[in-house]
């Protein structure tokens, strides 16, 4: 076996076997390091995917037991939800209606208010105001939802009752309204980010045409930031649909098929929290309703996410 020592001191084997140069072995070490890091990163990513898959698996498998006993048609068309009564009915629309009505009320509050705040912060406020206002706004998002729930029940409901004397003590309106307040910071913050990302050159073009700040914001900045705005709205929908404590505290928990926000009603989430706190025997039909309701909630959220993705693709940043 012949070896040639080069000027750099690296051993070069000309027989094809035996020696690995110092440089190459160093590379191999680095390669193993890379592999290790890659594996750790992959496991971290896999963990969240596996958790999601696990949740979906549990929801689906338990729901299969449920749908073996209750037909899907009854589930979707029955107008009563009384799973724990002797005369049990399983009409999920009862809970879906409460969820959708309260979410709608929340969005009617949060989207206009949040977008207005975003326009103000992005287009009108000076940098000092923005630096102070934005962290405070984001603090609102950190308040526990149970606090919001009691705020709805003890402060907002009496105020609303003063304006609407027929409003009951528990209502979708009051809970939805406070849920909207809770969501405002998400929309404001994300929308502001999207609007600030619009290049200054576009605004300068609009100002150079003689438009005012407000006209520029509405006719140039918002259309340019539309995909980001849509993303923030979809996130808001997901938050609203999945919100639990505010509704459990302030909307009442009796199942009620209604599209009237002035009535109390249970939502999917408040039903789940109510039943899960009780002592239902494992495997009973009541226990299985939790999973069927959870699956329904998951599908609703999934639907909104798909709509959100579609909106983002349709209105991708075109500047």
């Amino acid at each position, binding site marked *: 076996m012949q070896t040639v020592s080069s000027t750099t001191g690296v051993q070069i084997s000309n027989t094809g076997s035996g020696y690995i140069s110092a440089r190459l072995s160093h590379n191999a070490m680095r390669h193993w390091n890379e592999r290790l890091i890659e594996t750790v990163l992959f496991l971290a990513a896999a963990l969240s995917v596996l958790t999601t898959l696990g949740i979906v698996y549990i929801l689906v498998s338990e729901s299969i037991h449920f749908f073996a006993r209750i037909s899907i048609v009854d589930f979707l068309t029955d107008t009563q939800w009384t799973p724990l009564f002797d005369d049990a009915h399983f009409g999920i629309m009862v809970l879906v209606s409460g969820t959708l009505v309260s979410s709608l009320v929340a969005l009617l509050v949060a989207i206009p208010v949040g977008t207005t705040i975003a326009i103000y912060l992005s287009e009108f406020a000076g940098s000092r105001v923005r630096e102070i206002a934005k962290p405070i706004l984001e603090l609102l998002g950190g308040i526990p939802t149970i606090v919001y729930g009691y705020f709805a029940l003890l402060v907002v409901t009496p105020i609303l009752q003063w304006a609407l004397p027929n409003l009951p003590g528990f209502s979708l309106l009051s809970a939805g309204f406070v849920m909207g307040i809770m969501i405002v910071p998400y929309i404001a913050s994300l929308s502001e980010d999207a609007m600030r990302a619009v290049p200054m050159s576009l605004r300068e073009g609009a100002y150079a045409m003689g438009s005012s700040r407000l006209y520029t914001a509405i006719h140039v900045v918002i259309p340019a930031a*539309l995909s980001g705005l849509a993303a923030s709205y979809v996130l808001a929908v997901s938050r609203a649909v999945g919100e639990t404590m505010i509704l459990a505290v302030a909307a009442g928990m009796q199942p009620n098929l209604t599209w009237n926000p002035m009535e109390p009603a249970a939502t999917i989430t408040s039903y789940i929290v109510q039943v899960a706190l009780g002592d239902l025997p494992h495997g009973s039909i009541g226990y299985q309703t939790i999973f069927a309701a959870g699956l329904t909630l998951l599908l609703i959220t999934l639907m909104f996410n798909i709509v959100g993705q579609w909106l983002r693709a349709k209105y991708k940043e075109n*500047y």
Partner: protein
Amino acid sequence: MPNTTQERLKAEARGLNFFYNGGIQALKNINMPIYDNRVTALIGPSGCGKSTYLRSFNRMHDLYPGNRYEGEIRFYPDDTNLLAPEVDPIEVRMRVGMVFQKPNPFPKSIYENVAYGLRVRGERNRRMLDDKVEHALRGAALWDEVKDRLQDLASNLSGGQQQRLCIARALATDPELLLFDEPTSALDPIATGAIEELVHELKKRVTILIVTHNMQQAARVSDYTAYMFLGEMIEFGKTDEIFIKPKDRRTEDYITGRMG
């Protein structure tokens, strides 16, 4: 000074100083006429203040806090001082259009881009809008290329077309003075040629002030040229004279390529 007796003034800078936020002086005592229906080119090395000067004419500096003007830009025939604090920058921008370095079409259709300025001015009449949009697009030599797809998004156009769209957008509102800030620096030679031809054509309708880094471009398109250096106006004159026999040594060094 060249013989300019037959020229009419459109605007005139008088003792113009400009300070950016923080007090850095970017323009030093600029005195310069802008003649009606003529193309005036501003040349000079990067950082000499030519864009700063250009952006003073439509008060773009007002968009950012802390900027300060001194002196006047008189605007004719009404002899208004564009920089006077009581003059609303929006009123100024209604009369002075601008085309930017990078094409910046709005995220709207071709039609709505051109109609933008008209809508800002409250125009609602559909026939009027249609007419003016077509007129502006013809003026910007873009009509034949886009007449069948006016509702397409402007971002689908090529870079050169986008820049002509921005020119059409500025033209649609019949500005009295049109500012061009290096309008061809992001374009290929063919698109550049089209824009230069357009500038030449447009001076029949509108007074033009153009910033350019390209000396050949200044020589090709302008009637008057001003050479700026370190915030000062070194020399102003007819383009032929500036390029053939500049009076100032610094101008000569710059246009012959010894400096900048």
